[in-house]
């Protein structure tokens, strides 16, 4: 989810317009905010009775009255994803932006001369050019979700694994087992499972990395 959004933001901020550097600077705020504070921000924002976001969405008719997004077994994970989106989309946007800097302008210009629409240019020129970056970003977001401490911080802060065990992700489970529940051996086992999955991701990423350079 963070990847397409990051791409959209990057394409937009790659255009020339007044206030572009301000918009780019704004991206630094979610990027530098501590994950636990990001959790806190949305914990207040989505508070069922007085959170401004909940209220606004209620008014728009999207949420039922005093809706508890983090207390709902089916939607809690989705709510957490929104928080993590806010925190991580800027990073992806920056990675795409730095790739877009190297976009060959001649290719774009010449296809425009031949009468290609902007959408065609995007699909036939920009997207193939960005493909390696896209792949790297996808893997990176996989790693972030799986093994980044960011997802962990957000879960600890907002739901603590609840309601019930609905937001116990592998990573969080490993931590909980090892530390508060004092079962170091079992926790270590879980962490090895996470490691194996992460190593698979890492090998794919390394392959892509060497292909790109």
């Amino acid at each position: 989810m963070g990847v397409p959004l990051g791409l959209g933001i990057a394409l937009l901020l790659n255009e020339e317009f007044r206030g572009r550097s301000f918009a780019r600077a704004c991206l630094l705020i979610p990027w530098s905010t501590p994950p636990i504070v990001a959790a806190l921000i949305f914990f207040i924002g989505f508070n069922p009775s007085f959170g401004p976001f909940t209220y606004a969405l209620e008014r728009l008719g999207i949420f039922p009255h005093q809706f508890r997004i983090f207390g709902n077994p089916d939607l809690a994970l989705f709510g957490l994803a929104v928080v993590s989106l806010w925190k991580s989309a800027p990073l992806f946007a920056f990675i795409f932006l730095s790739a877009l800097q190297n976009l060959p302008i001649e290719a774009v210009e010449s296809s425009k001369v031949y009468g290609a629409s902007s959408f065609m240019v995007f699909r036939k020129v920009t997207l193939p050019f960005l493909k390696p970056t896209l792949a790297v970003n996808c893997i990176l977001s996989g790693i972030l979700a799986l093994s980044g401490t960011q997802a962990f911080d957000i879960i600890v802060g907002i739901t603590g694994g609840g309601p019930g065990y609905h937001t116990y992700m592998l990573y969080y489970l490993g931590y909980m087992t090892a530390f508060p529940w004092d079962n170091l051996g079992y926790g270590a086992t879980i962490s090895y499972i996470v490691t194996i999955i992460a190593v698979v991701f890492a090998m794919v990423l390394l392959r892509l990395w060497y292909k790109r350079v």
Partner: protein
Amino acid sequence: MGKSRVKRAAIYIGAIAVVLFTLAPYILTIFTSLQREVDLTSRPPFPFKSVTFTLDSYTYILSYEPFSTGFLHSAIVAVMTTAFVLLAGSLGAYAIARIRFPGRNLLFNIIVIVYMLPSLAMLIPIVVSLKILGILDTFIGMMFAHSIILLPLMTWFLIGIFASVPGDIDEACRIDGYSRFKSLFKMVIPLTKLGFLMILVFSFINSWNDLMFANTVGLVKIKLLQPRILEFMSGARVLYTQMAAAGILSSLPVVALALVLQKQIIKGIMRGAVK
């Protein structure tokens, strides 16, 4: 011409959406922290009604002892970690980027693989080994824990940054009688100031923002800031305005750092310091 006008409008609307998306949550939290608990907890919420603003929650937080200790400890650890990462990282990266020695590629691959390891996998070994060394719950131990996580990535970045400096420059320095250290610190680092600054900011922000290690490596003596925020959120009675004030204050150093150095950071990212 008409079409480009439509396009301009679309760009501005998009830009405003991006700015709202990134700023609104943060600004709402600032407003939350400025309200009184009574106003905050009654419906409808702030932007939809007028409220009186006060600085009460800030005065409370600033005089709240665990918070100020946490702030101080976090600052000490973040500065120590940044210094250590910069020193060790630049020495290691210089060696890999410049000196040919057997096992250089292997070493590089190991660095990348270690970076990919989930920090959970590192957490248990780190805690156990710090305990054996007897530096669990000390500043040094916390610095090592943060550095172990940060060093591989930062060294990786630094290798790329140093490799962008032509090798001839080192050669020239060496001929002029500089030692390796001298040519690293006198020539290569000043030439790559921008990238170096990026690494500094990255290390500081990551060390400051860490929660998991702060919670497990620091127990009694070392109390970092982020776990205090967690305590605010999971307490029996949640004081929302004070919690918001604590959150804003604890993110202030890193957000301010990012905004003050925004030009350099964005330029650095654009140059591909972060790939």
